[in-house]
């Protein structure tokens, strides 16, 4: 067993414990500690990706208990990639938070680290109930982060967000209960084997459990009709929190991908197909509603939230197709959209701070002090997010169009992808011209942002040209990931096989 696999969960947990215990520590010490942990997590995640790339599926059994009694963590290409993406997102978000957003209350960094622990745990766990537990950890931390700083708008959006997610948690428990009742196991690999062997009398329980899981994960992923909480929640959260939350919808997408390619993914199980048949229309509707709402939205941060929903739609569609090429293209798009959405959230905050009372409302405001720098960043970010050449959004959508060419629903998918891209272009073009060109006479009193405050946004938005430059290796990695996802029996063998040998 390779002990590095548990490190992405332990490191943020220990950091959070130290941060909570060190009551007297100044904010400066907390920042250094938190940033150091985030930097170490990035190195760790890179190590895990290299491990996953060469070693296949690797299992970590906590306490060395056999899978039927203990908790397993599983490292494969998909989980390693998601952990790396989380770390790559956390570092710039923390850098931005260290510019003052973390000073609005206490325990920002502890909550942030706990959130990272929950996200990493959800990606690494090989157990359905622990997926629930890590979901709870990341959600509880996210409640604290969303409300961080306080204020009327946050307490209103916060209560709606918390209630919605608690109702979702109850549904998750019921779904886990159904699947346990039908299979008698909670280990995902073990369930997969038992689902494949299940008789007709278990089918109703399993199907109900599977569809309930889609509802729960769809709520986290913000799939229409469960998406309408997102723009409000992300718009009121402080900017670094909104940036980190860009990964939260992807946790939902990841869970759908994991459960329906692994747990219900072995040969001869038709549940995944039944769910996939729903995912595609849901994804298409999500794309249309997300991008159309972004086109008419009146505030920049809510607009980015709607665009994020649109990008979830495209991923649901390719996950629903369940073939290697489509999933690979979806994973490339997932990396692109997560990093870029986070960059745009940070940029929106920088822009809003320099426009006086107009804030991020898409209406005439005071001229922006750093109009050239922020303007270029917005132009690059918007071009990339809408999917115009030469950035990663264009490449990602092109790969998706190519991968879905032979699908039965290809005409639908192509039409919706192309039309909603136009919606996004219109929305972002309108936002850019209102924000940067529609200026009132006068001078903004806001001080220009320091380089350190702009750097995180630059880093995140620069990921887009970087993803184009590194498209070769990235596409190679995600294709190998999709191939691995398409071979769930290897995953099952790794988790169950070694136990049999050890007994």
């Amino acid at each position: 067993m390779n002990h590095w696999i548990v490190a992405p969960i332990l490191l943020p947990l220990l950091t959070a414990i130290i941060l909570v215990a060190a009551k007297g520590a100044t904010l400066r010490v907390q920042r250094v500690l938190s940033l150091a942990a985030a930097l170490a997590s990035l190195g760790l995640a890179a190590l895990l990706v290299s491990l996953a790339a060469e070693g296949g599926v690797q299992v970590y059994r906590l306490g060395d208990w056999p899978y039927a009694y203990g908790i397993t963590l599983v490292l494969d290409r998909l989980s390693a990639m998601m952990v790396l993406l989380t770390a790559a997102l956390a570092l710039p978000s923390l850098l931005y938070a260290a510019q003052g957003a973390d000073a609005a209350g206490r325990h920002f960094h502890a909550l942030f680290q706990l959130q990272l622990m929950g996200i990493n745990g959800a990606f690494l766990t090989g157990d359905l109930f622990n997926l629930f537990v890590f979901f709870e950890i990341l959600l509880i931390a996210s409640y604290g982060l969303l409300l961080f700083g306080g204020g009327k708008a946050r307490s209103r959006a916060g209560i709606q967000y918390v209630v919605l997610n608690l109702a979702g948690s109850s549904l998750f428990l019921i779904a886990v209960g159904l699947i346990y009742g039908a299979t008698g196991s909670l280990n995902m690999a073990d369930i997969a084997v038992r689902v494949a062997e299940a008789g007709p009398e278990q089918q109703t329980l399993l199907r109900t459990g599977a569809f309930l899981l889609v509802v729960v994960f769809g709520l986290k992923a913000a799939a229409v009709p469960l998406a309408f909480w997102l723009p409000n929640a992300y718009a009121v959260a402080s900017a670094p929190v909104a940036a980190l939350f860009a990964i939260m919808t992807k946790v939902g997408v990841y869970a759908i991908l994991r459960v329906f390619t692994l747990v219900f993914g072995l040969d001869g199980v038709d549940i995944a197909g039944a769910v996939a048949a729903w995912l595609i229309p849901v994804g298409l509707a999500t794309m249309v509603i997300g991008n159309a709402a972004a086109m008419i939205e009146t505030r920049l941060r809510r607009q980015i939230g709607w665009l994020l929903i649109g990008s979830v739609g495209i991923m649901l569609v390719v996950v629903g197709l369940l073939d290697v090429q489509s999933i690979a293209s979806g994973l490339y798009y997932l990396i692109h959209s997560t990093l870029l959405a986070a960059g745009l959230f940070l940029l929106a905050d920088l822009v809003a701070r320099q426009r006086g009372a107009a804030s991020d409302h898409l209406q005439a405001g005071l001229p922006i002090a750093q109009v050239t720098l922020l303007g270029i960043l917005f132009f690059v970010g918007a071009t990339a997010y809408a999917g115009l050449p030469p950035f990663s959004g264009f490449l990602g959508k092109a790969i998706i169009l190519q991968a879905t060419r032979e699908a039965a629903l290809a005409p639908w998918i192509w039409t919706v992808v192309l039309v909603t891209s136009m919606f996004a272009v219109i929305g972002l073009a309108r936002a850019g011209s209102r924000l940067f060109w529609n200026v009132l006479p006068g001078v903004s009193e806001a001080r220009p942002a320091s380089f350190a405050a702009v750097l995180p946004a630059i880093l995140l938005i620069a990921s887009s040209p970087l993803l184009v430059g590194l498209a070769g290796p990235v596409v190679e990695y995600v294709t190998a990931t999709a191939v691995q996802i398409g071979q769930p029996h290897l995953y099952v063998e790794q988790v169950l096989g070694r136990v049999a040998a050890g007994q």
Partner: protein
Amino acid sequence: MDALVSLAIGTLVATGVYLLLRPRTVSVVYGVMLLSYAANLFILVMGRLTTGAPALIHDQATRYADPLPQALVLTAIVIGFGMAAFLLVLALRAQADHETDHVDGEEGDR
């Protein structure tokens, strides 16, 4: 006993959903709590209903109750209690911020 437990879960879910859809935060909090109780009871049932059977190894026992759902429910109850407490405090906070306990932070149309 099956019918009784089913009825209990059904009543909890129905009441929970009804309260969840009410406009006052207190009702909504109660709704969330009832729904989580229903989920806990449901998990317990998924280990199959047994009476008089121990969950731990015992010399005279001829049959056992499934211990795993009991452990799961314990976890879920702890998380549920924590969240209920948090949600109540949050509801109080929201009421103080908005001077109303409406979930939208303002009175809707009557």
